[in-house]
């Protein structure tokens, strides 16, 4: 498909030795980044389309293509994901590209102090909320209001397959306000 061709072209271009080693002027390095980002963005729509064939239709009873839109967050390394922070309930797919079964600790920016996480067997999953280090909260350019990470273990992810979780934050505005106030005091 055209989208995949764009991504192949961008990846092939960044296999040039100047891209790999950074021996290029800043504007050239920025252009490599731009090419890759645009191609990945174009491809994510394609990936979402393919994932909707893989996932059953959750809302309607008809056996048809599920028209769920799947998104990827590229700033999880600084605990930032606008989509996650604006949803009341999240469907999370954890896709395993390895040819062997694996398990993986998922870390998501948390907006609430309590969560319900259900796996594909509809069983509650144990989680832990971990306060973010100040250095992460203060990373230049970070705009997220999350001050904790939601951590849980995705187990038994099949090879070249995925497992799914249904995540709903349990909101308690009073408790959250007092936590945020206490945390900002300790921050200062």
């Amino acid at each position, binding site marked *: 498909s055209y989208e995949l061709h764009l991504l192949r072209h961008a990846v092939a271009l960044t296999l040039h030795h100047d891209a790999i*080693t950074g021996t290029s002027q800043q504007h050239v390095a920025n252009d490599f980044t731009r090419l890759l980002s645009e191609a990945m963005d174009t491809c994510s729509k394609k990936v979402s389309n393919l994932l909707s064939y893989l996932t059953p239709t959750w809302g309607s009873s008809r056996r048809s293509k599920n028209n769920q839109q799947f998104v990827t967050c590229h700033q999880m390394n600084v605990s930032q994901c606008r989509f996650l922070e604006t949803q009341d309930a999240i469907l*999370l797919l954890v896709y395993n590209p390895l040819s062997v079964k*694996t398990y993986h600790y998922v870390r998501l920016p948390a907006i609430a102090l309590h969560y319900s996480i259900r796996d594909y067997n509809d069983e509650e999953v144990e989680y832990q909320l*971990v306060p973010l280090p*100040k250095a992460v909260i203060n990373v230049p350019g970070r705009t997220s209001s999350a001050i904790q990470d939601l951590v849980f273990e995705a187990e038994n992810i099949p090879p070249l397959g995925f497992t799914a979780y*249904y995540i709903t934050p349990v909101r308690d505005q009073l408790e959250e306000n007092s936590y945020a106030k206490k945390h900002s005091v300790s921050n200062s």
Partner: protein
Amino acid sequence: EADMEVIPYITNEYLRVSVNKDTGFLESIQHVDGVKVQVSQNWYYYKQAQQTLQSGAYSFRPDSDRPTPVTEKVTYHAVRGSLVKEIRQRFSDWITQVIRLYRGEEFLEVEWVVGPVPLGTDLGKEVVSVFSTNITNSGEFSTDSNGRQMMRRSCWNDSTSHQQKKPVASCYYPVTSRICIHSLNTSVELCVLTDRAQGGTSYNEGEIELMVHRRLLTDDGFGLEESLNEEAHGAGLVVKGKHRILFGNFRQEVDDLTFSERVAHAARRWQMEPWLFFASGEKINRRKW
């Protein structure tokens, strides 16, 4: 509610990680099967001075063979929970780090945030993380330059008749996924896995060094005519990344796997870690789920 205590160690089913109570530096890692390694870790930087040949995009030319430590002690506190335990260290205004153990994982994860690198009187800094251990590796270490095959490396010129040590810049090798040292007499091997390609060496006995950030005002004269001084949001670039430490007895097999096979699996599992895709859950009714 995470409890912020100052007990200087964290443990999981496999490892017990201790920090020095006074300096706050990493001090030792003990494996449940008995293998224990003394390992200290600190952050250093190579200064860039006015000299004929200088560091730049193509080359690494520090003004001395050994870097300057960022600090002699760190402030730290612990955060503990059922799934993940952390010791958080603050080295300076521009370097902080989290030492982390996950339940059920046999590696120690070190997550660092470095930058903006301050430009003082020098012409730039090249920042390295140095792990100092009690492993007598006789100057030998190995790195993978392609994510698959481990190559033996050494900072000693084995071509000359007498043992001559190379300058550090000649002893920096590509580390695509991991760098390892091992001791023939104690059979202990320690590997540091990287989350991206870095330059690395083992310049002193028992040491592993990885370069994670460079901020330079100099140009190396190879034609780029631009120094490595990337900025973002009006300040010097801030980099964030992880190292993972695995160690063990390299002569012992576990589940029919040698230590180096287990390290290779861990590196591949990290490099090809799962991808997360999100969709709105509001249209999914509970019964259907």
